[in-house]
Each structure stands twice: as structure tokens, then as C-alpha cells.
């Protein structure tokens, strides 16, 4: 049944492509469904419409099965002017299918909502892409996060962090964070976690050594169970937990500094317009979030004895109560 379904989907997607064959030269490929991608798509469409009202992009979405590869092959074969990949899965799949296309026919790809495009091999450096991919990184520079933490707790000197040393994205982020911490007079106290079961042991090793904890978007450390352990640890130790998105503030982190997801769509829209105007992705720099959003959880802040000044609260994107 699964195979039959996949084949049916392949035929159906081919039909969709045929229907839209003459209508669009820009394809948007999402990594999946959900509010996360929808927010970016909405902002992207708004930006494209603002700059080029005639543009009619076609929207496609991955489903996580074998038909995805056929979809991507079909998209590339249409030789569109630009393909926008939203999310890591879409960008990686396009990268994997690209060698099948002759080099002179490879369409430019603008990616967005990708955590670390360099670690994923989509671009070669921040300054210059060097590939036919250009886009926007999702990660906020650690320095911005540390500054927000220092605004609330200026006395902090040692920040603890857990990360998976086998994860290229986390490792690159930690390298960057060491530099940023040093610039701000902070010391990063690191502990390794290669599987969720090691979280408690790693946290115990940090006990008494840190004055704050920094949660990074590491799929192991930020998953549900380890996060609960980190939250319990920081609450017991009465130290602030600095997270990277609103969802963790809702679950109990007192502070989070994260990217504006809508801006990811807007920046991708700007890149699409530049490529349509004649720019080549190879020479484009990697864009990073221009705007960061700050979230506070007052209940948790009070529980660990932190008072957040009213001025900071007014600048926050969202303040969550009990």
C-alpha cells in the first residue's frame, strides 16, 4: 500500500507540475508542513509580491517518503529561474539531486530556515557562497544571546553549555561561542553529551561551576527529556537558562533570544529578487538574521530570583506569565 501510495503521489505531483508548467518560473519547496514553514512562506510571498507583483511562484512540499526525490528531480528538470528551499531537508535534497543536472543548466537555489549552511555543505564560506546555493542562516550569533543575558544578569562570568561533539553544527556554534564569550569577558564551561541518557551526568559535572546555562539548538540537548533535566537543574541551582526560541520560554526557560522567522522569508525574497535581476549565487554572502527577538518567562525568572527591568520587558517580543 505504501508503495502504491508513493507511486500515486509521484503521478499526482507530476500532474501538478504539468498544470503549473507555464505559470511559474520560481518554485518554492518546503521541507514539510506546519506553522514554522507557513510563517516563512507567508513572509516570502509578501516580499516577492511587493517587489514583483507579476511573479507567481509555485509551492511544493516534501512528505518524507520516496516520492520526494522524484519531485525534486522534476523541479530541477523544469529549469526554473530560481528554486527557494525552505528548511534543511529541502535544501539537502536539492543539493543531492543537483549533480544529475548538467552544470550549465543548474538553477540557482535560495535556501532559508537552515541552521548551519556551511556545516551542511550548502555554501563554502560566509563571505562568498562558491556554489549555486545562496541563502539565510537560522542561527543567531552567540554574542547577541550573551548580551541579552548580561542585560538581565550583569554579574555573570561563567556560562555552562552542553553539546554533542559529533554534531558538526553544534561544534561550529561552540567554536564561535568561545570567541564571542571571550570578547564579552565570559568563560564558556562545556560538557559533552552524545546521547540523551548522558545529560544528567553532564549536568552534574557542571554543578557549582556555572552562573548561567546556555541551551543551543542541538537535537540531543534540546529534545524534550534532556531539556526537562536542564530546566530542573537550573531551577535547583537558581541560575538563569538562556534558550534560543519562544517554545523553550513557554516550557520554562526564563530568557530566550531567537531569530524572527518571518524575517527568514523576507531575506530569502530579497535574494530571489537579486538573482532574478541578474546576480549569481556564487558571489553572494551568507545572510544571517538581522533582527533578534527576546522572550521572557516571568514566573521562572522570579522562581530563581531574577528581576527583569521594566525597560527590558517593553523591548521584549513576548512576556509570558504563569
Amino acid at each position: 500500500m505504501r508503495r502504491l501510495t508513493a507511486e500515486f503521489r509521484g503521478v499526482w505531483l507530476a500532474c501538478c507540475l504539468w498544470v503549473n508548467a507555464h505559470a511559474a518560473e520560481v518554485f518554492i519547496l518546503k521541507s514539510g508542513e506546519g506553522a514554522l514553514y507557513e510563517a516563512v512562506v507567508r513572509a516570502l510571498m509578501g516580499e516577492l509580491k511587493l517587489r514583483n507583483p507579476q511573479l507567481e511562484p509555485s509551492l511544493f512540499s516534501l512528505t518524507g517518503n520516496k516520492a520526494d526525490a522524484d519531485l525534486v528531480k522534476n523541479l530541477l528538470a523544469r529549469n526554473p529561474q530560481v528554486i527557494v528551499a525552505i528548511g534543511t531537508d529541502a535544501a539537502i535534497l536539492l543539493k543531492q539531486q543537483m549533480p544529475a543536472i548538467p552544470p550549465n543548466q543548474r538553477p540557482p537555489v535560495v535556501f532559508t530556515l537552515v541552521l548551519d549552511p556551511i556545516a551542511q555543505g550548502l555554501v563554502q564560506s560566509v563571505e562568498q557562497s562558491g556554489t549555486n546555493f545562496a541563502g539565510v542562516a537560522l542561527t543567531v550569533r552567540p554574542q547577541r544571546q550573551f548580551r541579552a543575558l548580561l542585560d538581565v544578569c550583569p554579574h555573570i562570568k561563567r556560562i555552562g553549555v552542553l553539546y554533542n561533539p559529533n554534531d558538526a553544527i553544534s561544534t561550529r556554534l561552540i567554536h564561535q561561542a568561545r570567541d564571542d564569550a571571550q570578547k564579552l569577558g565570559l568563560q564558556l564551561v562545556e560538557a559533552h553529551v552524545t546521547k540523551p541518557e548522558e545529560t544528567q551526568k553532564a549536568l552534574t559535572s557542571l554543578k557549582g561551576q556555572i552562573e548561567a546555562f546556555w541551551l543551543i539548538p542541538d537535537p540531543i540537548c534540546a529534545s524534550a527529556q534532556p531539556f526537562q533535566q536542564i530546566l530542573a537543574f537550573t531551577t535547583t541551582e537558581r541560575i538563569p537558562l538562556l534558550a534560543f526560541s519562544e517554545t523553550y520560554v513557554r516550557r520554562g526557560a526564563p530568557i530566550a533570544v531567537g531569530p524572527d522567522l518571518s524575517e527568514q522569508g523576507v531575506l530569502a525574497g530579497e535574494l530571489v529578487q537579486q538573482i532574478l535581476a541578474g546576480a549569481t549565487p556564487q558571489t553572494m554572502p551568507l545572510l544571517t538574521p538581522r533582527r533578534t527577538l527576546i522572550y521572557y518567562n516571568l514566573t521562572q525568572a522570579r522562581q530563581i530570583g531574577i528581576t527583569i527591568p521594566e525597560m527590558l520587558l517593553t523591548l521584549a517580543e513576548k512576556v509570558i506569565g504563569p
Partner: protein
Amino acid sequence: MRMWLTLGGLVAFACLCFAQRTSATAEWLFADPQEVTQTATRTERTVYESFTTVRVLTRREIELSGAQNLHELLSRMVVDFEAQEGSIHNLLSTRGAYSASEFNERTLFLLDGMPLNDAILGNFSPMSFSTHDIERVEVAFGPGSAMYGPNAFAGVVHIVTRRQAGNSPSSFFSGLTERSGYFSSLRWSSSESPLSIQASFWRDPGSNRIRNNDTVVRSLIANWGQKWEGHQWNLLYGYIDMDRGSVGMRYGVFPTPHDRWQYRMHYWTLEQSRGTERKHTLRFYGSAGTMELLRTQPPTFDITTRTACTFNQAIAGLETFWQWQLGNGQILGGGDYRYAQASSASHLRGRHSATNLALFVQGEWHVARCRPVAGVRYDTHSIYGSQLSPRLGFTYQLNRQHILRASWGEAFRAPSFVELYLTNFPLWTPIRVGNNWEPAPYQIEGNPNLKPEKIRAFEIGWKYADARLRLDLAYFRQNLSDVVTVFLRDPNQPMLRQYNNLYAFPISGATAELGWKLGARTELTLAYMRTDYGGPVNQDFRPAKERAVIRVAHWNEQGWSGQIALTYPAFNLGFTDAYAWNSYLTLIYRSDSRTRWNLRIDNLFNTRTELARWVPGGGRAIWFTIQRDW
């Protein structure tokens, strides 16, 4: 046989759409999957952590339902509501708290926080509100008077407009159905402008078996929102003009084929809020308008004998409340002053007015895994005196997937001006004269001594949620007292009825809702409600004991999307229910990112019962619509 075919079709549809997302990438760590609601407590809480049953219908679900108005939406998608046909508009019975006097007065409707229930009948007609401007609908069940006062009796329906949700592309929506039915809606909105405007007009042809059952609605919603020096200002204006044939399907009333019910109402609210740790909200709100019944008296087929029965009403209110953060808790407290006026020279004994002053306070705490809530509201009314409405609730988080909840509360429903003062309002009932049926008038009189209806209710529930499955089980018991209904005033005057606080009875029941993600874009929802009555309930208006809703929805950004929904019973009307499954199919084809073609088929399997309209017996009805966004 049809039932088996339906279930077979559902299974086949589900298998066809089955596709599981296999990879999870790190950007998902940035997503917040928790749906937040404010309706139950006026403070932000996730739906999962709500202490009472809360149902949320998102924009996607609204589109997939194919519903053109709020009444259709709620009756198709939410198991706790049961649709009923009434003479002036279609009704909703909320968790068995039936409507004895043909109005929705036991449920409070809010539009972006503004109360919509009027002063004449205490109701709001959900069939007069287009779904095109709705971003989401939140429904909090159980007594809500502790926060909202009169009318929040069995539940609160909160309509959140697309502008309020910050998501409102300009668009045009239009469609046709057979027998001259049409629907058009035009919305203008811009991310550059703080203003958005939507105008809608539609004609619902009603039953194909009954004359004068159509409904024509014209509505306008204007929204303005601006942040200025730390203050958020919102201005909302709404206008609804509904014209409906009032023969409907009422039993026991002589057919009056030219009677029309006309309802014209203006709504407005100006809201200002500021602050974070000490948040303050100030809201001026009000409504003004007319209800007019054009009647042939006595009922004949001669339209020239039609006369107008006119009712006017106005409401003006000022509400203010503060939210304070205190340690692990949060306090919400405030006051509400409301002035209401209604007049009808011939049917309400002139002009009447009333004032209501209320104070309310609510505390929420977060203690380990437990989140208790306690609230109370004191209302003092110039006609019926004072009311105290307390409420308690808590949730206990067993672990990440399981949560237990319980709540207890009291609420009241204020008698409307019609119930208090109606006079000179004959209804025509058929009596046998020889071999013919002749119309005979009987009068309904208001009763100035009415007391408010009261409800005392408790509910316990269990919720489970993981990535693919969510389950919400609840058991509730509601004790209603001083229930207002029409009854004989004097046994020697059988043709004279009067509103009275006649009944007291309990309603107990249980609800279950299971949501199962069959794939990344496919969801199956199974919902069931059972209600049991004790005491002397008027059989005429008792809703069905059992109700079920089955939905399978599949969604795509481009190409085909669709939903098939089955509801049981098909429809409810006074004496009887149509004990059959009704079926609704919606198919949506998105030819590009801005264009949507919709096909909606009501009563897909053309099930026949004695009841008519778009329900079994009413025949299959097909709507074809198109939406274009800019």
C-alpha cells in the same frame, strides 16, 4: 449499507493520504507546537493546559469545513454543539443546555473580546457571521460567568478575526449554489495599513421543501489597530443585517409564508492596553440596532396584511482589568459597567433600561506540577439584583503526555427584555375546525419577576498528547435551576402563556475527542458526546442524547485538499431528531498560491428523513466557490 460504504470510503481515503514524515531537522526546535488560548481565563494558556474543555478551530480547519457561516462551522466541527432549526435563526445547543425559547442565549459570543449578545433576546445569531473573516474560533465549555458575567452560561465562543491575528491578505471570495443561493465576500487589508475592511453578502436558499426559508445577510467588519507610545489601540466596528424567512420548520405554529425576521445591528469597541508585568486593558464597547418581525396577522397567504413588530435595543459598556504578576502567580482583577436599553411601543410596554455593575478577580498559580485557578465575579443588576459567580479549577501534569484537570463553577443567565416585558405578541397555532385547520392566536407574556437562570457545574478530564495522537476525555455534570420557559399562567386561560422560572434539572454527560495524525497532512478526528437528563425536562426541546462527529481531513498547499465530515444526529428540531448520519464533503483545488476553487456538497449521500433543508430529507446541495488573494 450506506454507512458501510461511508466507513469504507473513509478508510480508503485515509490509506491513500497516508504518508509519514521520516526525518526531523533541527529547525523544528524553533517551532512552537503548543496552541495558546485566552478564552477560558482571559490570560494566555496552552489549550493542553486548560482546566476546562477548550476546542480551537484554526483557519485551516475553517477552510476545510467548507462552512460559510459560524453556525455551520460549529455544528459540523465541534461535537459539543448540536444544531437546531428555529424560526428566527438556526440555534446551537451547547452540551445539552438546550434553548427553551428558541434563542442562543445560553452561550456567550465574543468578537475579538467584544460581547455580541444583544439585550432584546440575549442572543447572537451565529448564522449571521461569515467565516471568511475568521482566523480562529475558540470555545471554552462550562460556566464562564466568573470572568464574563451574564450569558456565559454553558460556554463562551470567541471569534478571533484575521486582522486581530495579524494574518489577513486582501481577498475576494464568491460562490453559487442551486436555487439562487450565492455568497460573496471582499476583504481589503494591507501590511502597511493599520486598517482592514471586510464586506460580505450572501443568500442561503434554505430548504428545498419549505417555502420562505431563505436567509439573506449583509455584513461589514472594519478593524483598526495601532501601537502608539507603548499603548496598543484597537477599534472594531461591525454591522450585520440579516433577513430570514420565519416559517422555517417550526412545528405547532400555523404556517405564515410571508413572515420575515429582520435583524440589523451595529457593534463597536475601542480597546486600549499597555504594560507587561502589570498589564492594563480598558475597553469601551456597545451595540445598537433593530429587530423587526414582518408578520401576516392572522396568518394568511395575502402579503398585504403584513405588519411590522419592531424592537430596538442599545448597549453601552465600559470594562477595565489589570493583570499582575506575583511570584509564581498571576492575579487578574477588574470591573465592568453596562447599560442596556430596549424599546417597543407595542410589544415591550414602551422603553426599558437596566444597568449592571460587576467586579471580578481571578488568581492563577503554578505550584510544581499543579496549576490551580480560582475566580469570582459579583454582579449587581438594577432589575434582578445581585449574583455571585465563583469558579475553581486546576490541572495536574502527570508527565509530558498526560494531564489531569478538574473544574467547578457557577454561572447565570440574565433574563432578556423580551422575557421580562413582552406583551401583545400572538402566535398562531393550528386548531381543528371541522375538516380544516384554522389559526388560533395564543399570547406569550413577559414576566417582570423572572429570576436569572443558574447553573452549577463540575467537570473532570484527562488529556493525552504526543506527536501523532491527542485524546481529550471529560465527564461533566450541570445542575440547572430557575430555567426560564413558556408555560400556562392560568389554567382557565389556555391560550395565554408566560415566561416562568419553571424547571430545575441536572444534565450529566461525557465527551471524548481523538485526533490522530495519519500523515504529515492528514488527520482523522473522532468525537463523541453523550448527555443524560434528570428531572422534568420539556421533551419538545431536549437535544439528542448522543452526538458524534467523524472527520478526515487532508491538506496541501497546492493542488487538492479536502475533508469529509459525518455528523450524528443529522439535525435537531423541537420534537424530534433526524437520527441518521449527515455527510459533508469539501474539495479544494489550489491552482496557484493565490487562487482556490472549492466544491462543497452537503448531504453527500442524500440520506432521507422527515427533516428537510441541507440535512437528510433536504436533498443534496452543492456549492461552488472561488477565492482569490492579492
